[in-house]
């Protein structure tokens, strides 16, 4: 795996992470080192192997379709950095 400056910028953009120029340099180096480890999988033959997403693929308990939680809107809104009139406040997104 190689990671040039543009590719790292794109990745940081997708991940919604701001990185300073110094951080970018160090992160690129470390990611390349980590991918040297991860790239070991490329040599493994996995033809016909069903991907395993979860250890309990066959079990999925269902619950009765009844309301179990009470209204906790105020408690949840109280955790927000900025909220008003029952709404979360964010910077303006529509001109």
């Amino acid at each position, binding site marked *: 795996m190689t990671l040039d400056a543009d590719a790292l910028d794109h990745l940081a953009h997708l991940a919604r992470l701001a990185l300073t120029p110094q951080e970018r340099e160090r992160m690129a180096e470390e990611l390349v080192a980590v991918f040297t480890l*991860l790239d070991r999988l490329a040599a493994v033959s*996995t033809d016909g192997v069903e991907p395993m997403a979860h250890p*309990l693929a066959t079990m999925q308990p269902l619950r009765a379709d009844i309301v179990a939680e009470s209204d906790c809107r105020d408690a949840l809104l109280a955790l927000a950095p900025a909220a008003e009139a029952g709404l979360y406040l964010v910077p303006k997104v529509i001109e």
Partner: protein
Amino acid sequence: MTPLSSLSELLAALAQGKATAQSLVACAHARAKALQPTLNAFISLAEPEQSAAAARRADQRRAHGVEAPLLGIPIAHKDLFVTTDLPTTAASRMLLGYRSPFDATVVERLAAAGAIAIGKTNLDEFAMGSGNEHSFFGPARNPWDPTRVPGGSSGGSAAAVAAAIVPAATGTDTGGSVRQPAAHCGITGLKPTYGRVSRYGIIAYASSLDQAGLFARSAWDIALLLRQIAGHDPRDSTSVDCPVPDYPAILATLPPPRDRPLVGWRIGIVPSFLAADGVQSDILAALEAARRTYEQLGAAIVECTLPAAELAIPAYYIIAPAEASSNLARYDGVRYGHRTERYDDLFAMYCQSRAEGFGWEVKRRILIGTFVLSHGYYDAYYRKAQQVRRLVTDGYRSALEQCDLLLTPVTATTAWPIGAKANPVEEYLADLFTIGPSLAGLPALAHPIGFDAAGLPIGAQIIGRPFDEARLLAAAHIYQQATDWHRALPPLAHL
């Protein structure tokens, strides 16, 4: 200040009227405070009046004949379990000041059993680490040598139990985060089967791997605790609805060591693990001695192969970061958590809030996960890792058809000096023995089996079949009746 005894000793003292919940909670509190500058095991402690009041209520309930299995026992929770009584941080700046409006199911069940939480313990930020070095609050330290790591990610919980601050604590284990600190701190730690214990209210890291776990000073004590927290929870659809055995009752019926209670049991060892690069010779010697002890207790030893085991680390470090990058997308500075003051628009607010809120290791794993899930790389990395996960899992499953339990090291080395792992790959490789059972969702228990030349604890890992925690606990309990390693306390515990 004398060390607090083990969970079962404390329960006996409470039942016989030789101790009160008030005295135990006060003692736990005082020890936590006194050892905090040395161990940094706690991120938050309950107000002394708050826990004293809870202890008083426990004593009153006991006086009125109320029976609850853990009534009046002081415990601690890894600061990854959300709690209404105490702040929850996940050891991240992102969640400074966060106060959950609800309790995690594990927290709720232990409280219902009468336990009193005196504080929240240190960890690697969002449980990402093997040494507890990646905490916004600074590293937790090992009670056996405070210049060394306690292991991660549940390092604070392990340190608190090892230093006899509390007789038991909760942890979580995604790739070894209970087993490694248990081994490094010389205590017993259990990662139950994926699905055995509710994950509701555990801040998510990698959802197909995360599982609640426990620390205590013996397998017997773990059995008492697991009995309380295991079982289906309607609020976690991955918690499995299957019966929870009465673990303490099962252990109580086992024959004593002199009757060779393990006759008929097959314990598998994995020669390729023992020959792996970089395994400390003291650990190999201690594991060989543990193997002989199990043999003397009646077990037959069989050699097993785990063909794809060495692929577990790269597979894990694709799958776990992928799931983390998705889970941690929720920290956007809108609904809760840190919001930056430096932004012009919504996008900058997201990026800057996350840049300020997350530590370096978390950022690295988010970026790894984002990469392996991104367009053009998904098949080569994420899908490939999921296929390898199946190969690893098949390897463990077929090994566990030839034996009842696997006996392996927990770690390749004993606790390392804080700051000694120079790069991420070196730290990731520390997970060699614990990651396989995590990928396979299997239960695994770490128990102490000796010390290295420097006096640092060594642990063994026993791995069982899905939902066969009873057998793991039974094996470790029998071993602990025949040995004394689990009784050792670090000198620092004698304040």
